[in-house]
């Protein structure tokens, strides 16, 4: 094509829109007229080729001339004192979810973070983390993170963006910022609070909106009704003898869950002669991980659940709750009395807790009950809000949408979040946002919202950022970066500093400014102390002595109760829908995280997908089975979803997990699950009735890691009630077939030095999955993808087995972490033809990857089926950025090699070297396996069983101690403590511990 042709072509236009300089239209036009679409349709001639190549070379030269920021570089002429290659350093920082911080220590190998551990000093962590914190590492190295500032999909620079933003801000100054809106999630950051104040000073009319899928709006509104103001509520489970959870998954999700699990499980640790134990009732509208741990679990549809909560509140003597009369059917009535009595007997030592996603009425009932029972100030602590400027998220978002629709918003900055994806469907956020003339999205990766904004700005990961945040109890942490932003991302603070017109625009300067004001004298010492410890000592929010406003609560209850009566009438033709954030990918922010996608969800053991969860009875009535595709219809909105039949799901309730079906996401999340948001309206954020379900006759494939639900009468998970344990302490050991006297022609193995062993306390395990992700991170375990999981080839060295027991409608569920048993008579060892798996001197069953030829005989012969085989080349050895992720102490395996749990042998060896150098004996608890270190409830204990004083050796003497499949004479080194539950004797004694809970 010659020059003149091209200029001619440029004169023509294809529609009026193309001539309009309106940026909003340009956004819509983009997919049709992709850049360069009109160039060289019939190949290149020589001349044009030379032109293009010449230009490319010139640009390549220019591209290399990116101006580097002026920063001091210190060459390693004299290396830093602490830096020894091969020896990691640990830095304290924090990670946030929903604004709340959990303190972490990050392991850094020569400048790259490789593993995240909990910070023992941090009150929300105490050394453990949840699954999300473990997986944050993979997010940091996500190859699909955005790598450049984009304007209408074209690469621009941060400076180019500032050249647009700053004039736009200047234009707002005379308007006092009336057209400026900022939308973000919750935050607890003192620096952000200070920045917001400065922005207000510059733009008094500007507004800051907040929205998150898990908004905790219910709790906020309930505190508003109960105390007349926003307050924060936190719990002290170490003070609770009886806990009633109303749809609360406090053990595995939400602010403080790690701490809660620790405190809660510490109160349930029974040993010989130590029988004190708390009791947990769960009344829930969809099965949760916490429900799996409960001593009694009632599975009720939302309306019945609310009625039950009313009845309980009445039983506790809460005003204004008696209007509903008896709680319904006879069984429910009995439960009301039993739980009510239990609560009253433990007044002041109990907790009623509603879930983070629960609606205001449930939260208010819980608060009122806690107040009535005298728990406030003891086990339930009310304090000043910890979030910055708490507000109702849905109200805030609604205001924003209204303003945008009215054309009052001229500049919208979306900081994180993904409202285009997760805003309630009825608000039509996307259409409203399209009216804003200038909108920018600061986001971790290009997502649905970036697509609808003019500017996409890469957000730096929390491990790359200076910031600060507060724990669930208010303790402040300063977050420090472990690494420079890999792809040039910016933090929220850096963007807000521009908006505020501050001079400090560097992350560290911004955060230091806040803290210089706060710390005052002796800044340097204190600052260093804070960074070192990861927490600001003594900064937790003190207890706030507040009176409950009984009248406004009574008003609330009366209003809710009158609405409730018709809802209790069950209509058979329609179903109720319950929305929950997903237990692994959360609200969708982790959709591109392979570790979390491949993490089997509690109860369903599904990976890579969400599903419409149905009770077995409901599914049978509708003629549906697993993997059947259905169309769900709520009002005029429709969604297509696969069915998963879940025992324990309340009848006629469909649970949909949010966070899936992302339209614009990286390579991992693409195509995973369905998007349930179209059914979720601002009136029914948590649950809604009137859902219609229509089978489509199609089928989809889901990847479930455990196909068998029953234990087949085998004594793998052993459990008993507290009274059983008291009467027959050895009940668990008697359940097995016993071990035959070892008969062998060969002399036994002598373990003269140390003998490693592990005990898993089934009573303490919450099934939270943190250990599984920790194991992935520590041991470079590859992600295999949905198709391979469907074939049964997931690589997790540590899996959590789940078994149902009792009826399909109302089962009890038990969970069991299973890793390599490191058998003393390991069946895998003698069958390997090349000796690639051998017996270590200290009893470790060692896997020699280099020697493995891959016969898979060892895996076949392993009765526990804990060995994992690289059927294909699973580890990604090509993607550059993922190479930084690997733990340098652990081999990255190639295809054709067997692998399995090693008891984190690299950690054992590190300590072995250390103590040899220091010439001292091993201290018990000095070596922590990755799963043990991360476990919030201390359910995994590792150590030397030859040392009679070690914790693990003592636990092996407990009457609850048993090994699985011991009758095969494998002599496992990984053993278990039987689970002890504490059912209410009123209810539980008759049927023992099992299957006695009847919800409806």
């Amino acid at each position, binding site marked *: 094509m010659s020059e003149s042709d091209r200029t001619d072509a440029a004169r023509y236009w294809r529609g009026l829109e193309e001539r309009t300089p309106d940026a909003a239209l340009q956004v819509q036009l983009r997919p049709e007229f992709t850049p360069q679409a009109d160039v060289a349709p019939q190949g290149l001639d020589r001349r044009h080729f030379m032109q293009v190549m010449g230009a490319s070379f010139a640009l390549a030269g220019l591209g290399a001339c990116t101006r580097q920021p002026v920063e001091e570089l210190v060459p390693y002429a004299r290396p830093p004192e602490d830096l020894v290659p091969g020896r990691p350093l640990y830095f304290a920082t924090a990670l946030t979810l929903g604004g709340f911080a959990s303190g972490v220590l990050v392991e850094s190998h020569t400048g790259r973070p490789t593993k995240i551990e909990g910070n023992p000093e941090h009150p929300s962590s105490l050394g453990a983390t949840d699954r999300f914190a473990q997986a944050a590492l993979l997010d940091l190295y996500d190859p699909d993170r955005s790598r450049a500032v984009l304007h209408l999909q074209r690469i621009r620079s941060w400076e180019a963006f500032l050249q647009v933003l700053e004039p736009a801000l200047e234009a707002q100054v005379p308007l006092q910022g009336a057209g400026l809106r900022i939308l973000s999630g919750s935050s607890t950051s003192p620096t952000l609070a200070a920045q917001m104040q400065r922005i207000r000073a510059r733009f008094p009319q500007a507004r800051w909106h907040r929205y998150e899928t898990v908004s905790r709006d219910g709790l906020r509104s309930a505190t508003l009704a109960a105390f007349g103001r926003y307050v924060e509520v936190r719990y002290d489970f170490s003070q609770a003898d009886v806990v009633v959870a109303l749809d609360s998954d406090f053990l595995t999700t939400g602010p403080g869950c790690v701490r809660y699990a620790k405190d809660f499980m510490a109160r349930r640790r029974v040993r010989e002669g130590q029988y004190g134990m708390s009791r947990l009732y769960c009344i829930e509208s969809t099965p949760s991980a916490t429900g799996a741990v409960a001593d009694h679990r009632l599975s009720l549809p939302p309306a019945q659940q609310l009625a039950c909560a009313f009845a309980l509140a009445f039983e506790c003597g809460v005003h204004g709750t008696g209007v509903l009369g008896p709680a319904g059917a006879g069984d429910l009535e009995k439960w009301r009395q039993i739980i009510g009595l239990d609560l009253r007997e433990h007044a002041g030592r109990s907790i009623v807790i509603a879930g983070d996603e629960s609606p205001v009425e449930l939260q208010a009932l819980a608060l009122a009950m806690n107040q009535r029972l005298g728990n406030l100030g003891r086990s339930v602590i009310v304090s000043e809000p910890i979030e910055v400027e708490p507000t109702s998220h849905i109200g805030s978002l609604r205001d924003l949408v209204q303003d945008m629709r009215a054309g009052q918003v001229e500049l919208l900055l979306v900081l994180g979040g993904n409202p285009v994806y997760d805003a309630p469907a009825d608000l039509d956020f996307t259409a409203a946002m399209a009216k804003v003339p200038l909108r920018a999205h600061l986001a971790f990766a290009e997502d649905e919202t970036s697509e609808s904004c003019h500017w996409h700005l890469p957000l730096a990961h929390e491990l790359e950022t200076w910031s600060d945040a507060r724990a669930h109890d208010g303790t402040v942490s300063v977050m420090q970066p472990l690494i420079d932003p890999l792809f040039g991302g910016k933090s929220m603070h850096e963007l807000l500093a521009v908006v505020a017109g501050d001079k400090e625009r560097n992350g560290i300067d911004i955060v230091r400014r806040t803290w210089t004001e706060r710390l005052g004298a002796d800044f340097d010492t204190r600052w260093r102390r804070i960074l070192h410890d990861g927490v600001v000592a003594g900064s937790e929010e003190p207890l706030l002595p507040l009176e409950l406003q009984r009248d406004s609560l009574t008003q609330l209850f009366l209003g809710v109760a009158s609405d409730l009566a018709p809802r209790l009438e069950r209509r058979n033709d329609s179903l109720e829908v319950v929305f929950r954030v997903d237990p692994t990918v959360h609200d969708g922010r982790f959709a591109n995280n392979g570790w979390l996608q491949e993490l089997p969800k509690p109860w369903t053991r599904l990976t890579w997908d969400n599903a419409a969860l149905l009770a077995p009875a409901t599914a049978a009535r509708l003629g549906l089975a697993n993997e059947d595709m259905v169309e769900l219809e709520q009002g005029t909105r429709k969604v297509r979803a696969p069915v998963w039949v879940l025992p324990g799901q309340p009848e006629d309730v469909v649970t949909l997990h949010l966070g899936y079906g992302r339209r614009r996401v990286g390579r991992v999340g693409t195509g995973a699950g369905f998007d349930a948001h179209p059914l979720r309206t601002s009136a029914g954020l948590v649950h809604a009735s009137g859902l219609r379900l229509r089978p489509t006759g199609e089928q989809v494939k889901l990847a479930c890691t*455990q*196909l*068998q639900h*029953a*234990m*087949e*009468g*085998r004594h*793998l998970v052993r459990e008993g009630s507290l009274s059983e344990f008291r009467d027959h302490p050895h009940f668990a050991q008697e359940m097995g077939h016993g071990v035959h006297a070892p008969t062998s022609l060969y002399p036994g193995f002598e373990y003269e030095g140390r003998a490693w062993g592990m005990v898993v306390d089934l009573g303490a395990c919450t099934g939270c999955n943190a250990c599984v992700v920790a194991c992935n991170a520590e041991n470079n375990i590859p992600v295999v993808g949905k198709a*391979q999981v469907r*074939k*049964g*080839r*997931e690589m997790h060295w540590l*899996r959590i*087995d*789940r*078994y149902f027991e009792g009826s399909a409608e109302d089962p009890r569920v038990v969970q*069991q972490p*299973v890793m390599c048993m490191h058998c003393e008579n390991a*069946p895998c060892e*003698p*069958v*390997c*033809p*090349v*000796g690639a798996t051998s017996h270590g001197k200290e009893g470790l069953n060692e896997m020699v990857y280099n*020697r*493995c*030829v*891959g*016969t*898979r*005989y060892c*895996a*076949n*012969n392993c*009765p*526990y*089926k804990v060995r*994992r*085989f*690289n*059927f*294909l*080349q699973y580890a990604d050895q090509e993607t550059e950025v993922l190479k930084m992720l690997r733990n340098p102490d652990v081999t990255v395996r190639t*295809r*054709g*090699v*067997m692998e399995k749990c090693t008891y984190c042998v690299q950690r054992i060896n590190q300590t072995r070297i250390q103590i040899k150098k220091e010439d001292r004996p091993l201290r018990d608890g000095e070596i922590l396996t990755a799963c043990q270190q991360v476990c919030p409830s201390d359910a995994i204990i590792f150590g030397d069983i030859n040392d009679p004083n070690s914790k693990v050796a003592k636990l092996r003497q407990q009457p609850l101690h048993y090994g699985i*499949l011991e009758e*095969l004479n494998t002599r496992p080194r990984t053993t278990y403590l039987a689970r002890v539950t504490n059912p209410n004797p009123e209810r539980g004694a008759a049927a023992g511990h099992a299957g006695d809970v009847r919800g409806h």
Partner: protein
Amino acid sequence: MATETRTTADSPLVAPGHTTATVTDKIAAVVLQSTPRWFYPAFGASFGLLMLFMYAVTILFAKGVGIWGVNNPAGWGFAIVNFVWWIGIGHAGTLISAILLLLRQKWRQSINRFAEAMTLFAVACAGIYPILHLGRPWLAYWLFPYPATTGVWPQFRSPLIWDVFAISTYALVSLMFWYVGLIPDLATLRDRTQNRIARVVYGMMAMGWRGSAAHWHNHDTACILLAALATPLVVSVHSVVSLDFAAGLIPGWHATIFPPYFVAGAIFAGFAMVITLAIPLRAAFGLHDFITERHVRNMAKVMLATGLIVNYGYAIEIFIAWYSGNEYEQYMLTNRVLGPYRYIWYSLILCNVVATQFLWSAKVRSSAVAVWVVSMFINVGMWLERFVIVVTSLTRDFMPSAWGMYYPTRFDYFTFFGTIGLFLSLMFLFVRLLPMISIFEIRTLLPKARAKEKSA
């Protein structure tokens, strides 16, 4: 088998009217005549399957065993099923050549040559699988005890190492036996062929055989010695293969009956395959005079006898599962009969138990077509038996949480049918290049030869 001595007075092993010259003519003609027209499509089809095999193996080496259906509970699938199946088929040859030779069973002489060839080809097919199924097949040589610079030896406790020895020994001895037996006939072909190249090749292979008395004497001694060497192998090879399973602790594997049960199964399968091949070949080349109805009857009887031992093995497995009182063993049985792979088990019973019983009838035994049909059932049944042992046991063992399913992929089928292609291609080449019936041994069956023997 012992009953066979009784049948010496039975119909003759070579049809009446043959002389040494006609026997030689007739058998050598199969090789020396021009290629029959049906041969091209038949060989072409086999060769096509062989090419499919090459394709499947290329992809396998490029990508890994993940292209197959093997997974976490079922670490072994089609590859091991096929391996055991082929090894089993490879058993008839040695049995016929060694044990029946020592037992002076004259009737073996018309079938031993191609039974031995079949053995070799089946062992070749079997031997491929243990290498293909490795995660890292290029390291297969680590299974051999060679003096490595690393100082690392194979692990002699592993049944897979015993396999390496058992199978390589078996393959070598079978090859030697077969080749030694071929020498006089190679000399015959050398003398008879019109083609110069063939003459040179056969001549070199005949190793200067002139048919002198000293040659015959040495040849006889070598055959008897090799037979004595090969005899224990008949028992050992499949016993060792069965130990791959019996030494494991998976319910359905861990059984003391496995070695004898596998050996009987192997002979059962081997004879079935001999019949499967012999009857069509006999028809194609008109060799009814040498492979007579009596041969078919005898082989049917061997199949019946070994089949009954196999059936006894099934019964004992069921009995022990119940009698042991072991819940895992009991579940293993429940799973076979009622589990997700129950139809495989039902088909196995149909093929190996029900179909075998037809051989009780003398009428069935005298009908070549009927015996051939039964042998086909047995070929399938023995494959299914190995599937039941390998896959059904592995997919549901001790931990219900780890139970799974095994679904073969198209590459599993490609490889399986591919080795059948390899086997048939080799078989077709053998039939056209070497005398498929031992010429010199048939000569000894002629009445004339017998008269000489008697008078001597």
